[in-house]
């Protein structure tokens, strides 16, 4: 074991809050987030002999945690995957000709899209909006946009087809956009 590279005694003090803060918006469940952090420390402890110091201790722990989060979605997929509904809340955004309805057409956000975003309100609202999505849409959104997996990996993990995947992403984005506009832009 590489004593000089790892300090397991200090892990909880140094990283528990950071790991937990990362996990919480990705699983929406405080107890589950805590469990995943605990499991991360345990797995890291068991794998400590294999730590070569190529990454920092912190990023190594984050890599383990990210795998735990994906595993969580993979297991959960078995319970939530269902045939795609023909009707979806996002259908109301379009009229019979499939053009935007006056109520739900994209408005002017009046923000600088190229500027850095340092805004706790945004993340709080994004979180609330994400929680309103169907479970399967949340899984897809988290895996794609928060964990950067590619479409093929996500389809495999969740056991869905590529065309289902695109429909889920499409619906999730339509709903998130509207929800952000109503609750964040128009605060």
């Amino acid at each position: 074991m590489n004593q000089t590279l790892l300090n397991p005694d200090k892990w909880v003090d140094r990283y528990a809050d950071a790991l937990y803060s990362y996990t919480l918006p990705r699983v929406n469940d405080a107890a589950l987030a805590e469990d995943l952090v605990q499991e991360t420390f345990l797995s890291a402890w068991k794998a400590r002999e294999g730590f070569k110091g190529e990454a920092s201790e912190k990023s190594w722990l984050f890599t383990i945690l990210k795998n735990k989060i994906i595993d969580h979605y993979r297991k959960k997929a078995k319970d939530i995957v269902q045939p795609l509904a023909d009707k979806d809340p996002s259908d109301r955004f379009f009229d019979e000709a499939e053009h935007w309805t006056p109520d739900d057409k994209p408005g002017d956000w009046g923000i600088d899209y190229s500027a850095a975003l340092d805004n706790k309100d945004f993340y709080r609202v994004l979180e609330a909006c994400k929680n309103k999505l169907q479970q399967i849409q949340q899984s897809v959104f988290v895996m794609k946009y928060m964990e950067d997996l590619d479409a093929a990996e996500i389809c495999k993990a969740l056991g869905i087809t590529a065309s289902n995947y695109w429909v889920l992403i499409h619906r999730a984005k339509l709903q998130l956009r509207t929800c952000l506009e109503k609750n964040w832009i128009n605060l």
Partner: protein
Amino acid sequence: MNFLNISCKKATYLVSKKEANKLSWLEKLQLRGHLAICSLCRKFEIQSKWFSEHAHHAHIDAILSPESKEKMQSVLKDQ
């Protein structure tokens, strides 16, 4: 109405697919043609791309209770 004309619903669907470079040549033409004349779908593209990119940095400053941390520490000690 011809095969190049698509609806806003279809265009917004193709916008997501475009991010992953999964558009066929026909879909590329359809989307380009639609975005050229539809400012609402252009807005959708900019906004959805923007919040999707920022979602990556989602972070909530949360703190575990001292009890939780003690428990984690003792579980590790028991190993």
